[in-house]
């Protein structure tokens, strides 16, 4: 009986030690992209005098924040290009064509972080931005990052804007026409802790 107790105690200690060694010591919190409280929108110049606005309605992503070592944080975003919405069905359909987004060939726009740096008020995130079959390394400045607890669910939000030229990503310059080459993308992202 005494031996059995002794063996059980040893087993318990060994299990605890093995579990502690096996589990990585991670301080990163994982967050899932909350589509309901997030948006990816864009605007582009029309004839150089006004703006045409649009958004993508189907977006998914995730990010992990390591408060102790921000360089270990990661950010991922995937946009379904088919979900483009400029409040005009004919224009949306036209934008899906091969002359523009070519959604049958390039169904997604993605961003994958490669380097993260904490800055005052947020993070500076460098990563691979892929659109229309072309990948370029860009740097985003994310503002935000404070965690908020709402009804027992932890939430974090970031905002960023980026300006890019469609011609840099394989869009036909001649198809650009009266709509400007440069587009401004605004991302407001809220993540829910897993």
């Amino acid at each position, binding site marked *: 009986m005494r031996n059995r107790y002794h063996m059980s105690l040893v087993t318990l200690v060994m299990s605890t030690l093995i579990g502690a060694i096996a589990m990585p010591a991670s301080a990163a919190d994982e967050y899932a992209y909350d589509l309901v409280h997030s948006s990816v929108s864009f605007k582009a110049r029309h004839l150089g005098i006004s703006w045409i606005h649009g958004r993508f309605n189907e977006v998914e992503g995730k990010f992990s924040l390591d408060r102790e070592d921000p360089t270990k944080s990661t950010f991922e975003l995937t946009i379904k290009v088919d979900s483009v919405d400029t409040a005009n069905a004919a224009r949306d359909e036209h934008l899906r064509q091969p*002359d523009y987004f070519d959604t049958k060939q390039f169904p997604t726009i993605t961003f994958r972080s490669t380097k993260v740096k904490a800055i005052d008020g947020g993070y500076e995130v460098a990563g691979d931005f892929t659109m229309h*079959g072309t990948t370029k390394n860009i740097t985003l400045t994310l503002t935000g990052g404070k965690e908020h607890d709402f009804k027992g669910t932890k939430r974090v939000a970031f905002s960023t804007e980026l300006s890019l030229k469609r011609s840099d990503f394989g869009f036909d310059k*001649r198809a650009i*026409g009266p*709509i400007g080459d440069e587009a401004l993308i605004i991302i407001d992202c809220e993540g829910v802790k897993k």
Partner: protein
Amino acid sequence: MPDPFLYLSASGAAALASAIPFLAISALVMARARRIASINAPASTSVHGTGPQPGSATGWPAACVVAMGLGLAVGSFVLLRRSVWPPSSALERLLTVVIPAVLIIEWIAGLQRVPHWFTWLLRIGLAAMIPRILWHGSVYLSGADSQWEAWQSATAWLLCSVLLASVWGLLGRLAERAPGASLPFGLGLTISSAGLTIMLAGYIEGGAMAFPLTAALLATTGGVWLARTCSDSLPRAKVAADRDTSSNCRSLMNSGGAAILGIGIAGLYGLLFIGHFFGRLSTMTAMTLLLSPLLCWVTEVPFLRHRHPWLVGSLRLAFVAIPLAVVLILAKRDFDRDMAPLLSLLIP
């Protein structure tokens, strides 16, 4: 935005690129034919003389392939003005993979020693591969973003391959049975109509590619016709040798015509495939355009078949033009309904 001047430039460049080398080759072949005919004249008095063949059996088909290839290369370069390698879109794969493959196959088909069945085996094999090539990396193949199940992809692949092989075979059979310039001209008419329809459906660059293709096809056909005219005008003093030259030239031009048709059909199919699966071209419209050239078969009915060639040719073009006109009218109607309001927003 559509640029008519650019399309004219691309078409002109394609036509020029197709015509010049073909005419140069034609002149060389005809000069050689005359030289050999003058050597053969004293000894050979029968059609099946024992002298050397008056002209290369592979000259005309190879000339057609070279002319079409050059025309397409120059025309597409002028039109697109960008590198298409490595290909990232279906149109680029059509230009860099499919068209060169067709050119190679038609070159092989023009070689005298290649059996007819082997040629068609190659064509059927290519017809089976074209859908896979054009769908590469798209949502139609299996993958994370695929919108089709594997069985749907396989079924569509099979149907598309069978369709192309059937049209190619039927048109090829007609070209062997009743050759004439009306076949490539009808095909050219169909290709240009397909291009306009694809543009009206919203895919401007894809539709515009039809214009240099049409120009190369018509210029090469014109070159063949001119060479045929030259062969007919050979001096008739050396009758047997001239008959050898003339009949060889006619049969060889038929082979050249097969090359023109093959490249034209593959190009037409490729544009319609891209317009349907990547653009907004409806299935009915794409099928109508693809099958229109087959209406040339109507002139094979007994009471039309032996009519004057000009009448038969004109009837063929008329039969092909009817469904094309209907398609274009409907495409314009849809454009006015769907795109015109959008253009009124874009263009003040």
